[in-house]
């Protein structure tokens, strides 16, 4: 089937088998390999993408479900050469070790901030509770998201 959707701001048309998983279409057909597959069962959050601004697991979505949606992957977060404030905060706070969970963490944090622009530390922990990191122990990830939240608050 032919599907049309917006991928990171760009109109995209693809011929796909409808029952392929969205994570596979994004990685293999669109070359957006920033979207990772960890468990393939919705438990780890590595495949998190934004669908119309809200976080979803791309391992539990089929290609047909991309039709008509605005999809954001980690590659769509930076604006040209400027990293997204969350990406900068992750670098500054050492929130990345192996990096496999980082795209999912940043997109889950974006979805959290879209719904709640002033999350507390506890809200951030709860908001990222579907994303597993096996390296950092989470402390620095929560620090980074908190720093990005405070930065946004200072701007507004």
């Amino acid at each position, binding site marked *: 089937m032919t599907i049309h959707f917006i991928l990171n701001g760009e109109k995209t048309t693809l011929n796909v088998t*409808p029952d392929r998983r969205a994570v596979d279409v994004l990685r293999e057909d669109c070359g957006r390999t920033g979207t990772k597959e960890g468990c393939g069962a919705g438990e780890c959050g590595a495949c998190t993408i934004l669908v119309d601004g*809200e976080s979803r697991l791309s391992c539990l*979505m089929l290609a047909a479900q991309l039709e008509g949606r605005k999809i954001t992957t980690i590659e769509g977060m930076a604006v040209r050469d400027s990293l997204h404030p969350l990406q900068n905060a992750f670098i500054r706070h050492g929130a990345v070790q192996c990096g496999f969970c980082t795209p999912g963490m940043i997109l889950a944090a974006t*979805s959290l901030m879209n719904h709640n622009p002033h999350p507390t530390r506890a809200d951030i922990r709860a908001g990222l509770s579907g994303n597993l990191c096996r390296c950092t122990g989470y402390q620095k990830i929560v620090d980074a998201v908190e720093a990005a939240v405070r930065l946004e608050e200072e701007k507004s």
Partner: protein
Amino acid sequence: MTQVYLPRTLTELWTYLDGEPEALIYTGGTDLLVKMPAENANTAPALICLERLGELRCIRETADSILIGSTTTHAELLRHPLILAQLPVLAQALQTLGSPLIRNMGTIGGNICTASPAGDTLPPLYILEAEVELHSRKAVRILPIREFISGPGKTQLQKGEILSGVAVKKPADYNIHHFEKVGQRKSMACAVASMAALLRLSPSGLIEAARLALGSVGPTVVTATAIDESLIGKKLSLTSLAATAERIRQLVAPIDDVRASADYRRTVSGNLLLRLLDARTQ
């Protein structure tokens, strides 16, 4: 290859179902698509995804009940003022369900149709006297949830029928709305045991009405009128609850599995009642 249909209206849905009567139906995919690779790879004749069926995505209020459309996500329910204000026992359960990602995708209709003994919305729905609405091209029928769910993973849903919504009674007569789940961790945890409770405490602190439901400790949600009645006239104190806690431990019928032993589940089931000592009136 399996065809995937995304109906936008019930009329479209019936047309797809007429053409593919064996199709598997899902909305969030958080249960079906997890099982698919192993069990159904290339064997499902077709898939019908209800995520775009706007008619079923709603929360409405009548004088004495609240109606929830089946494709309403858990996250939508948790953001809705009606649910937060009127159904705190359901909201508390939803907060423990999966993760934010799962709650953005999974729906209340899916949680009911999956009929897992550990389904987090089920104990609250049982004590809220939920009735499910089942829709086919030709008819609509209503069933109490306890009749709809007939066993682990088993429901009365027939071919050509979908669960279109669930209606619950407003628990206006109760001033304690309580849910607790014990799992192996806080997030993404399948319940080892859970309990939903509605109580009415008199100004002098006596229990005047009680409804309890336990999850994950039997083939379906466990409720018992005798247990509920044994609480009437009692105070919320350790000594007065201890006898009922023991009766709960005898009543439940849990199994051993990877998450916990049956013995542990039995002990925890009784202890969950004692946690009502910390519950606050609303």
